[in-house]
C-alpha cells in the first residue's frame, strides 16, 4: 500500500520536477536564486505542487491540501528531497502552512478556512505572526497592542517585534488585547490582519549574525475585518497556545544534522589532525566531541522513540515537545560551539574571502543559533512547562 503510494509519488516527481531546479539553492523565504530559466521553472514547480495539494499535503482537499496522512506526507517530502529538490510552499507561505493554517483548521469558521487556507497551501500568500512585543517576550500575556471595535470592524494600535518575514508578508496573525479590565490572559484575542494597508509599517532588525528575517512591526489605526477574529473574543490565549504547540512541533528536529553534510568528526580530523592511532591530537576536544555526538544521538533516538510510541498510542506527542525543543537546542548550539573551537582562529571570520565559505557560514550559524534558546518559548519557559505540565509541580512562588 505505502510502496504503491511511494511509487506513484516517484513517478509524479520524475514527470513534474523541472530538471534545472535539481540542486538549486532555495533560500529561507522559499525563493530560488538563479537565472530567468530557473525562476520560470520554479514558478511552474510551485504551481504543480499546489495543484497536487502537496503544499500542505495533510490538509483537506477543499482547502488546497491533498488529504494525506502524516506518513504519506513524509514520503512526499522524502521523495522530493531524494530527487534533489524541495517543496518551497511551506517557506513561501511564511508561518501559514506550519502554524497559522493548522490552528485555523481547528478554530476557524468554514468561511475563514475557505478564505485563507487555499492561499497558504498554494504558497501564494505569505503569513507572519505578531506575537512578541518589546515588553512582552517570555511573558507574552502582558502584551499591550490593542484592538477596538468600530462600525467597520477592528482598529489595531501598538508595536510587535520579532515578526519574522513581516516585510514580505501579505497577512499577519496578531495577538491583541481586547479587554483591558480582564485578567492578563483573559482579555486577549487573535486577529488576522492584511499587511498591505497604510496603518502597518515594518522595519527589518539586524541581528548579531547580520541580516535577519525579523522585523519590528508598527500598527497605527490598522484595520481588520469584523470576521477576521479567529476563535472567540477574549479567548486568543487558547488559540495562541495551540499555535505555539504547532511551532514547537515544527522545531523539534535538530536542524544541525539536517543540513550537515560533513560529519563533525571529519571536520575535527581535518582541522586538528590525528595521532598515528587515528585519535584526535586534542584529547580534551576529543572527549567533548564524543559527549556531544552521544547527546545528539540520544536526542535523535528520543524523537524516533516518541514517534514509535505515538503510533502505538502510548503518549501524547505535545507533552514531550518541550523536552525535545530543549534537547534540539542543546544539540544545535553545542555543535556550533564545538565547530568554532575546532576551527580555532579560522572560526572567528565575519566575511568569506580571507576565510572560506564554510568558515564564514559556521560563524553566522553559531551566532544565529543563539536564537534557538530564546524563540518559541525560551529554554527556561520550556522548563517551566515540563515542571508544571508534565511533572505536576505547583505554580512558581516568589520565595526560594
Amino acid at each position: 500500500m505505502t510502496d504503491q503510494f511511494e511509487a506513484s509519488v516517484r513517478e509524479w516527481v520524475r514527470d513534474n520536477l523541472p530538471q534545472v531546479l535539481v540542486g538549486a539553492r532555495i533560500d529561507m523565504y522559499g525563493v530560488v536564486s538563479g537565472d530567468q530559466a530557473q525562476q520560470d521553472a520554479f514558478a511552474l514547480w510551485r504551481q504543480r505542487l499546489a495543484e497536487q495539494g502537496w503544499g500542505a499535503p495533510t490538509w483537506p482537499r477543499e482547502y488546497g491540501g491533498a488529504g494525506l496522512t502524516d506518513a504519506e506526507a513524509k514520503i512526499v517530502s522524502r521523495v522530493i528531497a531524494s530527487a534533489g529538490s524541495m517543496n518551497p510552499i511551506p517557506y513561501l507561505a511564511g508561518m501559514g502552512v506550519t502554524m497559522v493554517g493548522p490552528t485555523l483548521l481547528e478554530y476557524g469558521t468554514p468561511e475563514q478556512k475557505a478564505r485563507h487556507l487555499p492561499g497558504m497551501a498554494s504558497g501564494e500568500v505569505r503569513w507572519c505572526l505578531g506575537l512578541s512585543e518589546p515588553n512582552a517576550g517570555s511573558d507574552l500575556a502582558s502584551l499591550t497592542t490593542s484592538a477596538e471595535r468600530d462600525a467597520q470592524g477592528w482598529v489595531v494600535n501598538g508595536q510587535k517585534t520579532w515578526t519574522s518575514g513581516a516585510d514580505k508578508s501579505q497577512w499577519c496573525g496578531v495577538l491583541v488585547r481586547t479587554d483591558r479590565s480582564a485578567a492578563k490572559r483573559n482579555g486577549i484575542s487573535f486577529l488576522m490582519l492584511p499587511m498591505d494597508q497604510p496603518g502597518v509599517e515594518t522595519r527589518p532588525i539586524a541581528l548579531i549574525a547580520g541580516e535577519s528575517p525579523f522585523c519590528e512591526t508598527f500598527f497605527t489605526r490598522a484595520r481588520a475585518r469584523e470576521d477576521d477574529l479567529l476563535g472567540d473574543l477574549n479567548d486568543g490565549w487558547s488559540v495562541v497556545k495551540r499555535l505555539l504547540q504547532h511551532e514547537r512541533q515544527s522545531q523539534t528536529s535538530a536542524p544541525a544534522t539536517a543540513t550537515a553534510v560533513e560529519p563533525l568528526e571529519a571536520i575535527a580530523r581535518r582541522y586538528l589532525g590525528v595521532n598515528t592511532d587515528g585519535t584526535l591530537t586534542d584529547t580534551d576536544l576529543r572527549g567533548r566531541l564524543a559527549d556531544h555526538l552521544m547527546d545528539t544521538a540520544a536526542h535523535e533516538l528520543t524523537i524516533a522513540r516518541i514517534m514509535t510510541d505515538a503510533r502505538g498510542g502510548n503518549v501524547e506527542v505535545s507533552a514531550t515537545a518541550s523536552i525535545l525543543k530543549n534537547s534540539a537546542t542543546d544539540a544545535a548550539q553545542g555543535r556550533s560551539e564545538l565547530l568554532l573551537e575546532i576551527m580555532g582562529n579560522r572560526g572567528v571570520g565575519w566575511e568569506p574571502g580571507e576565510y572560506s565559505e564554510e568558515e564564514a557560514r559556521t560563524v553566522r550559524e553559531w551566532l544565529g543559533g543563539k536564537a534557538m534558546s530564546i524563540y518559541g518559548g525560551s529554554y527556561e519557559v520550556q522548563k517551566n512547562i515540563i515542571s508544571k505540565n508534565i511533572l505536576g509541580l505547583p505554580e512558581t512562588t516568589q520565595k526560594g
Partner: protein
Amino acid sequence: MAVLTEEQAFIKDQASDWVKTKAPVSRLRALRDSHPGQSFLPDTWQAMVDMGWSGILVPEQYGGSDLGHLTCGLILEQLGRQLTASPLFASSLVGATALLLAGNPEQQEALLPAIVNGSAIVTLALEETSQHAPAHTALRAGPGGDGFRLSGTKTFVDEGMCATHFVVAARTAGSPGDARGISLLLVPADAAGLTRSALPTIDSRDHARLSFGEVEVDSAALLGAPDEAMPVLEAILDRARIGIAAEMLGTASQAFDMTLDYLKTREQFGSVIGSFQALGHRAAALYSRMELSRSCVEAALQAVDADADNVAELAALAKCQVGKFLFDMSNELIQIHGGIGMTDEFDAGLYLKRARVLETSYGNRAYHRHRYAALKGF
C-alpha cells in the same frame, strides 16, 4: 517506553508488582544488616527462578524462554528500582550470554539448564586492576595437565562468593595490552588452588577477589577459540553493559520519583519546595535527561535482539549516557532531600552507594566516551 508485545507488557507489570511487594529496597537493607556475608536472600532468588526470569535469554531446548534482551532489560530495570540483590544479571545475563556466544553445544548442555533452574551461578571473572581494561588481561593460563594451568588474580567479580562457575578471561599468548592472546576458560568455583575472598563494597552486594594458584582445568574448559577471545568477549561485555544500563536506568528512575515526591510534599518558607523555580528547573532538566537516557537503553536492547551491526556503539552510548544521568541523579537525590538524605535510616544513601558501584562496573563514563570516539573513528 518502547511499544511492547503483550507478553513483554505482562512481564514488565509482573516484575514491577513483584519487586515492589516482595523485593523492595527494605530487603536489601535487611540483607545488609541481618545477613552479613550472604550474597542475596534465597527466597528472593528462588522466586525469580520460579517466575522463569533466570531463563529469559536461554533457548527453549535448555529450559529457557528465549524472550530476548529487551524483555530481560525490562526486568533488570525493575530490579534496579528497588536495588534487589540477586545473581540474575551476573549469571542469567552475563554467564548465560558467555555460554551462548562462546560455548560449544556440550558446554551449553552442561550448564545452561542449571543456570535456568538456579542450581548453577556462572559469572564472568575479568577485572584485574582498578580500571575496566579487557585487553590488559594478565592472568596467565599456560599449558598444564590435560589443558591449562592458571595463575594470577581477578577482582571485582560479580557474585563471586556465591558463583559455582567462573568464565575467566586469561592470557594464553602475548602480553597485557595485546587484544590477541586472550582465551576464555570455564573454571568451577571449587577447583583446587582457587581461593576467593569477599570485597566489602559500599553497595552490600557480592563482589569477590579470586586468587588462582596453579589452577588446572582440562582442555574442554576452553570457551571458543584459543587466543582469539577478544571479539566474543567484547560481544559478551556489550550485552552486559546494555543490561547494566537498564538496571541503572531503573535505579535512577526510582531516585527521580523519590525526589519528585519530596518536591511535592516537603514544605519550607510556607510553600512546597517544588514551587521554587530553582528546584522546578532542576527537576525538569533531570526528567528530560531520564527520557533521553531511556531512549538510549531501549535502542541498545532492541539492537541486541535484532543482532544489529551497531550494538557496540549503542552499548557505549547507553552505558555512558545513563551513567552520566545516574551520577547526577544520585547526587541530586541527596541534595534535594537535604538533611534527611544524609541519614542512614532514609534510603537515599543506598541508591547513591549502588550508583557508584554500577558506574565503575563494565566501563565507566570515561571508558565509554573514549570507546565511542574510537568506534566513530576519531
